[in-house]
């Protein structure tokens, strides 16, 4: 943790991440307005004390909607990444442990998933099952599984020759114990870094899907829908689009910086002489 805060980038990333997480968690309490409250007479208001970031086409307070958008972004990304990380890691460990034929099967499955653009998958799922937040999370999770799987598998393969695993076998540790106490802690590092680097990716995917209407349904405030709304009424006011886009950009940047600082801190080779 100390090493992460050693660079300005790391500090900045940590600050932004902290801010987004706080916003996401406490949005209902710190948002001055109900994000869905209409005040059509007040539409397209500029920056003011009453509306810190103005209002949108229906007079809804943008600041409040932005905060709730953080909740959506974090909810979707953290849930889907958690699902993908757990299942992907399990599959990756499995791939490294089973005979070659099964391993090939798993890797081919990874490749198939990886070759699908998430948008196309989202369209297909929505067409068949109808839109919903759960589907969104599911789609994103599935598209991320191959990445976690491959990293987990590579880590386990690297570890296979490590003397301490053999030492544990000699002491009599069962394969399960070896996996849980010795393999997992030693492969966790890169996986955690991967998870944090995926957050900005997922936020963007979610925003993108919401933008084209395949994500969260209105009136739920996602940054994607905010951008869409703002974009639709660009001629009336540039403020909503700007505000929402900046929020998305800042969050993405913050998480990327955080992830990179985490990666540098975790990798024992980085930063050593």
């Amino acid at each position, binding site marked *: 943790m100390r090493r992460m805060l050693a660079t300005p980038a790391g500090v900045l990333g940590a600050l932004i991440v902290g801010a987004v997480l706080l916003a996401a968690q406490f949005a209902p309490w710190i948002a001055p307005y109900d994000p869905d409250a209409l005040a059509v007479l007040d539409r397209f208001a500029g920056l003011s004390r009453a509306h810190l970031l103005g209002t949108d086409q229906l007079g809804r307070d943008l600041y409040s909607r932005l905060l709730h958008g953080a909740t959506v972004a974090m909810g979707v990304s953290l849930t889907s990444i958690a699902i993908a990380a757990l299942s992907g890691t399990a599959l990756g460990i499995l791939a490294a442990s089973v005979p070659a034929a099964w391993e090939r099967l798993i890797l081919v499955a990874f490749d198939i998933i990886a070759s699908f653009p998430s948008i196309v998958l989202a369209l297909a799922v929505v067409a068949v099952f109808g839109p919903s937040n759960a589907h969104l999370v599911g789609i994103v999770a599935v598209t991320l599984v191959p990445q976690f799987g491959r990293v987990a598998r590579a880590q386990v393969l690297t570890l296979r020759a490590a003397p*301490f695993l053999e*030492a544990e076998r000699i002491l009599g540790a069962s394969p399960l114990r070896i996996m849980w106490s010795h393999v997992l802690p030693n492969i966790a590092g890169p996986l955690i870094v991967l998870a944090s680097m995926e957050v900005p990716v997922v936020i963007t995917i979610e925003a993108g899907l919401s933008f084209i209407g395949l994500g969260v349904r209105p009136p739920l405030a996602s940054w994607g829908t905010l951008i869409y709304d703002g974009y639709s009424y660009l001629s009336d006011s540039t403020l909503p689009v700007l505000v929402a886009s900046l929020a998305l950009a800042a969050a993405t940047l913050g998480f990327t910086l955080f992830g990179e600082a985490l990666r540098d801190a975790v990798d024992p080779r980085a930063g050593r002489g």
Partner: protein
Amino acid sequence: MTPAAELRGVGVTFPSGVGALSNVSLGLPAGAVTGLVGESGSGKTTLCRVLMGLQAASSGTVLFGGEPLPALLARGRLAFRRQAQMLLQDAAGSLSPRMTLRRLLAEPAAIHGLPRKEAWARTEGLMRRLGLSPDLLDKYPHQVSGGQARRVAVARALVLRPALLVADEPTAGLDVSVQGELLNLLLDLQAELGLTLLVCSHNLPVIRRITTETVVMYLGEVVEHGPTAALFTSPAHPYTAALLSTRPGAPGRITLHGEVPSPVHPPAGCRFHTRCPQAQTRCTTEHPELRQAAGQTVRCHYPLVGDPAPQEMA
């Protein structure tokens, strides 16, 4: 008397076709210290792994106290592991990097379900004997010296009170000034616990000093086996003689020509004939068997002591 552990005609061939061990027969006398000498490609590491049940033998049998290993393992993997332990060559590498020494030292007892208090008391006793200070307990393996890591490995192996301990290069990587201390401790513990100790090492003076019997291996075969003192003063096999002559200051340095042949295609006849200073025609075609020569067991047609092998009937 039944040897503590025994290999009978053990061969190991890897799936790739490389033969690591060929017809190895060897018995470890109970409670004694036996030395295993060999260079790279000799198969000594594979032998240790077969003994520990980490590597399956392609042929032959492995016995512990007269019982075949597969039966012992089937009866209880854990029970066998309590009987036979091994010190790996890379001591620091044998300690799981993300665990504190405290957890690492408590682990053997946890794995085997030994009563915690009693086992920890024993561990603390071992730590005292090995000179491991308690303030090392909260450190991680990469934070302690090579010598300390080695002692931790010894403590972990011995807390289970095994009957057999295989030490793979116990002095590798240790400074000369601390080797003696570690070996003294190992020998003290061996005597107290009545351990059967197999020491693999290329450090010949150590082998000479601490073992009662020595086994010399070359390219997957045992080439000589006998009481240490006799083996060192009058080696029977030319390879042993050459190896012993490499010690600086040893009289009559014998330089072997050529490189160690690849284990994939061992030479025909005697495997050592390509480098042997006294190879003769018979050595290139006829593979010598192990036989007795002046109290040593040797695999050579023309051993340096005793009589040459009798000619086979044409």
